[in-house]
C-alpha cells in the first residue's frame, strides 16, 4: 500500500495496522526519513516538498509491486508527505513485513533507494540566502543501482 499526504503519520500505528491479524509475519523492517537541520541550528531550514500528483502515486505503486515480486512479503506500506516541513518532521516511511528478517530488511532498503531516485518529489530548502532547490545526489543513483537486475537499466 502507498499513501501521499500533507499530514504527519504515526509509525507505531502504521506498524500495528500492517501486522494486526497476520501471524505469518516474523520480521517487520522500517525506514523513516526526517527533515535534517541543514543550517546547523543557525536560523530557518524548513523545506517544501513539491510533487507530481498522479505520477507520484503511480510510481510508488509500481515500486511497491516490484518489491512484492522480488521478495516474499506479507505486507508493505509507504507514506510520503508533501508541503512545508520543519526540521525534525517526518517526511517518508517505508515498512516491509515478511516471515523472516532478510526479506524485510532488503526490500525496505530497495524501496527507499528506488523511491529516492524515481518518485517525482523535489525539495525546496529555505536558507538564509533565500529558497534553493536541492540537487540530486549521484550517491543516490549508486544506491539504487545495486538493486538493478542484470540486463535492465532500472
Amino acid at each position: 500500500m502507498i499513501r501521499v499526504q500533507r499530514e504527519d503519520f504515526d509509525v507505531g500505528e502504521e506498524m500495528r495496522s500492517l501486522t494486526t491479524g497476520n501471524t505469518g509475519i516474523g520480521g517487520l523492517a522500517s525506514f523513516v526519513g526526517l527533515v535534517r537541520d541543514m543550517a546547523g541550528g543557525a536560523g530557518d531550514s524548513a523545506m517544501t516538498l513539491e510533487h507530481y500528483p498522479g505520477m507520484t502515486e503511480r510510481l510508488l505503486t509500481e515500486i511497491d509491486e516490484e518489491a512484492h515480486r522480488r521478495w516474499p512479503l506479507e505486507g508493505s506500506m509507504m507514506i510520503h508527505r508533501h508541503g512545508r516541513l520543519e526540521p525534525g518532521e517526518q517526511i517518508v516511511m517505508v515498512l516491509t513485513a515478511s516471515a523472516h528478517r532478510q526479506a524485510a530488511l532488503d526490500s525496505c532498503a530497495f524501496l527507499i533507494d528506488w523511491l529516492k531516485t524515481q518518485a517525482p518529489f523535489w525539495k525546496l530548502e529555505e536558507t538564509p540566502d533565500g529558497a534553493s532547490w536541492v540537487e540530486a545526489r549521484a550517491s543516490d543513483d549508486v544506491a539504487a543501482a545495486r538493486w538493478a537486475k542484470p540486463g535492465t537499466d532500472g
Partner: protein
Amino acid sequence: MKLLYFAWLKQKIGIGAEEVTLPDEVNDVAGVVAWLKTRGDNYATALKDDAIVRVAVNQTYAKPDTTVSNGDEVALFPPVTGG
C-alpha cells in the same frame, strides 16, 4: 498536448502547466524539448542543460525517442530529490 513543469523548471519557465498544439513535424520527446526551446528566452534558459531534464509521457518516464502526440500529458522536471 498538456505540458507540465515542476521545481526549478516551473520557476524558470514561469508557469506550471499549459495546453499546446504541436507542430506537425514534432513527434517525439526530443522534438518537444527542441521545439519548446524556440518558444522564448524563458524556455531556452530553463532547458539549456537538457541532458539533466527528465521527461514523463502520460506519467511514465520517457526517453528522447519516445513518441508523443497532441492527446498526451508530457511533464518536464529536474532529477528528483524526495525521500
